[in-house]
Structure formats: structure tokens, C-alpha cells
């Protein structure tokens, strides 16, 4: 990720925008919301996910996250898919909501939500506010696309491009979330 791109290659942010706006781009570059999360949590996890490595579906954290996502605020939100790339939950008042089972991974969830707001702004052309919600803790936080947040999202897009186009994953790194990661045993088996 420290290696800089060669001069003739395009900025990944531009590349993403072109492929999002124009279906005819060769070698399109897509970033999904969950890739944003992975990038913030663990670049190695992002690399595994980008190679479509299977996750351990029996992993308790995976099961729990899916359940919370499927059950929370069921009546007040609509799931909207945009360009087949991002899937967002829109509240009755038009704000974009991201639901997380716990607040321990707040930064990744926030980056994911900001990416949706950035995408809506840059690709679709609508400005929206975001709500980060933790149903199990009955907490909500409003999130807006400030200049600083925009830079954060765009740097993440560049980082995601570098990780996912690399031939090998970044080395394993012990993190507080490792034990609940669906790739844990795959990642640490040696």
C-alpha cells in the first residue's frame, strides 16, 4: 500500500466514479459498503473477501450480525439497491441508515455509511444525511459528509484499490477483533 501507482494509471477515485457512471468501462472498479468496513477493520480481511474466500457461516459473530440486521427497525426503513453495487437502508424521512449490532466497531460502520452518502452525492447527485444506529444499545448518531469525511472516504477508496489489486494479502496482524472474525482460522492457520 506504500508503493505509489505508476504515473499513467488513473486515480482509483476517478476510476470508481467512471465505472459507476458509465457501464462501458473496461476493468471496472467497484467498492461495496462492506469493503469499506473491511478496509477499516483489517486489510487482510478485505483481501480475502475480495477473492471471494468463503467465510465460516457457523461463526457466532456472523450469525448475530445477520440476525440484528434482518430484524432491527423493520417497519421504518426500506432497502434500496443502487447500481447493483451498494445497498442502503433509507428511513421514512429520507436519511440513510446503517445498523450495527454493537458500537465496538463504530469507525468501520461510520466509514461505510459515509461511503453511501459520498456515492449518493457523487454518482446519483443527491445530498443526504446519515444515521448510525445501534439497536441493541438504543443509540443513534447523525453523520454528515463534511470535507474531512469526504477525504476519509476517498483515501479509503484508494487504499481499497491497492489492497484488492495486490497479488498477495497483507501479513496477518493481531487485532482485538481477530477472535470474532469469520476468517480467523483460515487467516491464522499455519
Amino acid at each position, binding site marked *: 500500500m506504500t508503493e505509489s501507482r505508476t504515473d499513467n494509471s488513473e486515480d482509483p477515485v476517478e476510476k470508481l466514479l467512471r465505472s459507476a457512471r458509465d457501464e462501458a468501462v473496461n476493468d471496472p472498479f467497484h467498492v461495496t459498503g462492506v469493503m469499506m468496513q473491511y478496509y477499516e477493520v483489517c486489510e487482510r480481511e478485505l483481501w480475502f473477501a475480495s*477473492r*471471494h*474466500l*468463503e467465510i465460516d*457461516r*457457523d461463526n457466532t459473530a456472523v450469525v448475530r450480525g445477520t440476525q440484528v440486521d434482518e430484524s432491527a427497525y423493520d417497519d421504518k426503513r426500506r432497502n434500496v439497491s443502487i447500481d447493483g453495487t451498494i445497498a442502503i437502508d433509507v428511513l421514512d424521512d429520507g436519511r440513510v441508515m446503517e445498523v450495527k449490532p454493537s458500537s465496538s466497531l463504530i469507525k468501520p460502520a461510520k466509514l461505510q455509511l459515509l461511503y453511501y452518502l459520498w456515492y449518493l452525492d457523487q454518482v446519483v447527485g443527491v445530498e443526504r444525511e446519515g444515521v448510525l444506529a445501534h439497536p441493541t444499545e438504543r443509540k443513534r448518531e447523525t453523520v454528515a459528509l463534511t470535507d474531512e469525511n469526504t477525504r476519509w472516504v476517498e483515501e479509503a477508496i484508494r487504499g481499497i484499490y491497492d489492497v484488492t489489486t495486490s*497479488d*498477495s*494479502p497483507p501479513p496477518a496482524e493481531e487485532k482485538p477483533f481477530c*477472535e470474532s472474525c469469520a476468517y*480467523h*482460522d*483460515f*487467516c*491464522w*492457520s*499455519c
Partner: protein
Amino acid sequence: MNDNYHVFTDGRLERHNDTIRLVTEDGEKKYLPIENAEALFLHGQIDYNTRLVSFLNDVGVAIHVFGWNDYYAGSIMPERGQTSGQTLVEQVRAYDDSTRRRAIARQFIEGSIHNMRANVKYYDDRGYDFDAIIDRLEAQAESLSDEMDTNELMGVEATARKAYYSIFDDVLPDGFDFGGRQYNPPDNEVNSLISFGNSLVYANVVSAIRATALDPAVSFLHEPGERRYSLALDIADLFKPLLADRIIFRVVNRNQLQLDDFESDLNGCLLNENGRKTFSKAFEESLEQTVDHPRLNRKVSYQYLLRVEVYKLKKHLLTGEEYVPFKRWW
């Protein structure tokens, strides 16, 4: 979710509501707790229908069938939950690149010899004098090089295994005479135990491979087979000393299995039903045994070590990170 159930009697397996029952020939009905099952091992003559197969597919449970002479006859696997074109492409690429293929094959041999040596060392520490055998195994391990093709590697393995098998006659009690490996069919009690133990290891490796997106037919040490899951052969070799041979020594030396647990005829020697039950029970207990895994940072069962091994190989194929074979570390 990792119990194996072995069926030794003849009869009929059927779906009954949301579980599986076995109806034996005398009409007795037994229910199998399918929610905890990883696989069913069928050793007897069993009838079943498509309804049973669909149900086992839904609950993700495999059937492994053992036929004549206790040989593995095939599996009915649940529809693949895991598929990954990229994984298969990388697996085939590694097979097709002779440098990479040799390196992986060599690791399998290195691990196998290490695990054979661990068994020899165990008995060497308990009053036997196996120094010469240990030396021979070490010499074979040291002779390995990256330049060897798979035939040469197989030769090293065969020499090591021959030395390794020479301890069996010393470790096992009188009456259990081995005299070297024979199969097709096994010619004595020890050979029949090795055959049976090895096929149980093999079937469990088949299940472990199927839990990932690796293709069980694309192998590195053995030639990719048309009929056999040759990748399972590659991986099973690493685990035979731990999962099959140690159990053979244990059940025989503790008199849990005796000569009347076998039946011999002109066609060789096989475990009888009671013998198979005893051995399978000891085998399953061994699969459930756990060991501290230093990298995973928790206790894992011997059975899970098979899954970890497949993960390691897959990780090597996809990332290029080094594949280090299973070497008993405790």
C-alpha cells in the same frame, strides 16, 4: 456439528420426520441425532432412498460408504455449499507448475516422516530401542530436496514408511504378527487394522476438503486420480500416524481388540462387526481429543486439525504464503 455416526448392522436408513432412523433387519428402530452429525459411515448393507439423501443434503451431512474388505467405496456429499472458481483455478495452476507442485509434494512427505518419527520416538522413550529406525527416518527426511519429482519423493516416502512399519512387530503383542504391509486384501490382523484405520482417516479428510472450495481430485503428491479423491490421499498420509496407527497400538496393547475380533478366510483377514465397532469407537474418541493450537490460540480437536490443514493448503495456493505441513508438535 462434528460427530461421525457409524452403522455396522444391515438394514434400512430412512428419514422419519426431521430426523434419521435406522431400521435393522429384525425390525428394531434406532434414531440418529442428526443435528450434531458431520457424517454417517455405513459399514453394513444399508438400503436408503432419495428422500433420505435430500434430507441429509438439507442438513449438510455426508454419507461415507465402506464396501468389501472395509475399503472406502465412495461418498454421498451434500451439494457444495462452497464453490470458488478462483480457488480451483489457483489449485490447478499450482499443480501445473512443476516447481510449485514439487514444493507442496515435498512438504507432504516431510510432514509424514515427521509424524511417523513422532510415533517411533514415543515408543523409543518407553523402553524400546528404536534409535536405528529414528536415524533411518531422519536420513530420509534429510535426503529430501526441492529438485525431486513426485516419483522420487514417493520413493523417499516408501523407504521411510518401510522403516517405520518395522516397529509394529516389536510394539504389538504376540499373535499380532505384521511382517510388512499387504493390502488387496490385507493378509493378517495388523494389515486389516491399518487398512481400516487408513480408510477412516481418508473419509474424514474427504469431508474436510469438501468444507472448503478445494477440489478433492486435484492433488500434488499423488497423481490426480480419475476415481479417487487424490488430494485426500495427499493429506491423509500426514495424519495416518496420529489418527490410525496410534489407535491400533492402543487398542491392541490394551486388549480392547483381540484375535477373535477378526475373521480370516482364503481371501485375507478382516475385522468382524464387533472388531469394527471397537476400533471405530476408539477412532472417534481420538478425533474428539483436543490439543492446544499455538497459532489459533485455543484447543482444537484432532478432527479439526484436518480442516485446518485444508485451510493451510488453500491459503498457500491463494496467497503464496508458505505451506507448512502438519507436524505433531506435542
